[in-house]
């Protein structure tokens, strides 16, 4: 990473030489006279530097999502924001980015928005399912130079995919590109299949395992599943991992590899099993 942490914008980078020269001219910091030059208010603190977490929602807005599915989704997403706001607390600054895909791939906002300021813009559905293109777009944005540009430490992002059908483009090619992205590799991935058409095996290819894939067959379930997955994933994602687990031997990198993803899988499965609901399915009663 760059040495000049604060000055990363291009125009400032151009001035680097000048800045370095100016710095060389100033007195050493420990000089006593200099002591009283700087802001020395012992109570004048800024907030502690927080780790950042970006939660990516990848949402299928193809024509088949029209009606109840989109209505439920819009409603539950609006309700979800205040719930996620609670998870970050002192340690983590949580941001939200929403990528929708139908015929085109589109971000809800041009950059991730802090959870305190985030407002859900209601989505509508039409077109086909360009999931592969969405994967490519996500991969392009999940970069230090783009959406993940926080100067301080970041947690690996949470990536939550929601879809009700099979991709109409070559999703494998998109996924291949995404898989080479380190943020994706270390990220917490979860997927929600909506209705009977959604293919859980394909979704497991995206998340890396079946435990973090859930399915909703009804409106009630859809709302429940989105909440369970989004809240659990952001809770786990926004906190450091409690690594110790009554081991008697020293933990190694392998012991902790993907520990959060495993934990997410376990918790989602536990919660899903408690929430079996029996109302009318999306695909029946038409």
């Amino acid at each position, binding site marked *: *990473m760059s040495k000049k*942490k*604060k000055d990363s914008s291009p125009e400032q980078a151009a001035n680097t030489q000048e800045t370095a020269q100016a710095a060389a001219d100033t007195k050493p*910091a420990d000089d006593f006279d200099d*002591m*009283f030059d*700087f*802001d*020395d208010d*012992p*109570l004048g*603190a*800024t*907030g*502690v*530097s927080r*780790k950042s977490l970006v939660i990516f929602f990848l949402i299928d807005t193809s024509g088949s999502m029209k009606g109840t599915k989109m209505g439920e989704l819009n409603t539950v997403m609006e309700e979800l*924001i*205040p719930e996620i*706001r*609670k998870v970050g*607390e*002192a*340690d983590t600054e949580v941001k939200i980015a929403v990528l929708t895909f139908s015929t085109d791939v589109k971000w809800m906002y041009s950059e991730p928005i802090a959870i*305190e300021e985030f407002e859900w813009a209601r989505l509508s559905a039409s077109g086909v399912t360009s999931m592969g293109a969405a994967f490519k777009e996500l991969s392009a944005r999940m970069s*230090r130079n783009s959406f993940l540009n926080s*100067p*301080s*430490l*970041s*947690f*690996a992002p949470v990536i939550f995919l929601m879809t009700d059908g099979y991709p109409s483009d070559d999703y494998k090619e998109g996924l291949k590109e995404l898989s080479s992205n*380190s*943020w994706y590799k*270390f990220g917490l991935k979860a997927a929600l299949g909506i209705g009977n058409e959604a293919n859980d095996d394909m979704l497991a290819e995206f998340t890396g395992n079946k435990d973090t894939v859930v399915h909703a067959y009804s409106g009630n379930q859809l709302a429940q599943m989105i909440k369970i997955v989004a809240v659990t994933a952001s809770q786990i994602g926004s*906190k*450091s*991992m*409690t*690594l*110790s*687990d*009554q*081991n*008697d*031997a*020293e*933990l190694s*990198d392998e*012991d*902790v*590899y*993907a*520990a*959060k993803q495993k934990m997410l899988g376990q918790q989602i499965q*536990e919660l899903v099993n408690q929430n079996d609901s029996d109302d009318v399915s999306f695909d029946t009663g038409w």
Partner: protein
Amino acid sequence: MTELSIGQEVELEYGGKATVAGVIGSGGQGTVYLVDYNGMKWALKWYDISKMKDPAAFKNNIKKNISDGAPSNKFLWPRYLTKDMPDGTFGYLMELKPESFDSFVDILNTYRLRVDPLTGRAVKEPVRFTDLKAMVTAVINIANAFRQLHRAGKSYQDLNDGGFFINVDTGAVLVCDCDNIAPDGANFGIGGKPGYMAPEIVRGLAKPDVQTDKYSLAVVLFKLLFRGDPMEGEKVIKDVCLTEAAELKHYGAEAVFVYDPDNTTNRPVRGIHDNVIKFWRMYPDYIKDAFIQSFTAGLTDPNKRIIENEWQKLFVRLRTEIISCTCGRTNFTSMFEKQDSTTYRCPKCGMTFATLEFSNRDYRMPLYIGSKFYECEIDDNSDDFISVAGELVENKLKPGVLGIRNCSERSWNVKMPDGKYYDVLPGKGCPIWQGLEIDFGGVTAKI
């Protein structure tokens, strides 16, 4: 887990029912509800027992803590256990945090979020200590609370920023989340919060106990004073993404203190850790040395960690060494100029401050209107750092004449400007002059 709904009644173990009135918050182990019980509002911590290894042992430990009672009034201690639900879920009642206290988390963030219940919009309200004395009193109180707990043979186990409420006007401290407190050596499953956990716990080599509490205590104290993470510097930031493996490395086997004098690889980064950079320059060496010791030698050797009583003494000294100048500048003596060996000078307005030398310590107390010393400073057997023993005041009948008022409950023997010794009774005072001597009854002081 069994969730509770508003209006639901929960039976308590020794009779009576608490009625759920709302949700206060939720955490890793369960949810805290607001409840009515016997005409009063209480907090009910309600567990998710599916996340517990041994709920029965955990519950027994709380029961034991309830019967032992709190080590002091600084703890929001468990008060009443509930009966078990049919599925085994249980909880306990504790007193509510008073309105006048802010959470440690909000103090670190420098704001609290006030959420409008109707729109869900959040507004930030600033949170900061009213004065420097209140902040230093808060760290004295935190060190003292853990000293009391450890003296009761117990360890807190899960010491972190979620565990305290602080009154920013007075520095009063309330320790909450007391349910993991266990006899030293026992552990009921909690590991702790990363960033606060001792490296040997992070590495999987130890379980929480009094020694690991001492490490976490040093982190909490560092965060409150320096407003940053003692282990997060250049080396950690370089990794960009804090993966599980990165955490294991930077908070475990390869943890490096940001101001380790022998290892400069992890210095704070300007633009990210500005607080730490700024405050590290301001604090006196004895405070910095204590943190260096805690986070270098104490990193790997628990016996090298600073004990609570030592912290308490250091912070009592730090409080004594605050100068509030009439020009408005308030800071530690380390940030004032020294005119000569016994006089400080304000670098902003030039005002000078005489100092008082005490027989029981090797640092001098600066004198300014409102400066105070406390019981523990004039009586070596006292642990009372709250009761004011003496205060520098202006004589009400002779404006411009400054003196020390005896706020203690015992009589002092004082050498007055006429060269003779007089008894100064509680409530009386003596002028300050070059040659002043005070005998507090054992401990003495002179200008």
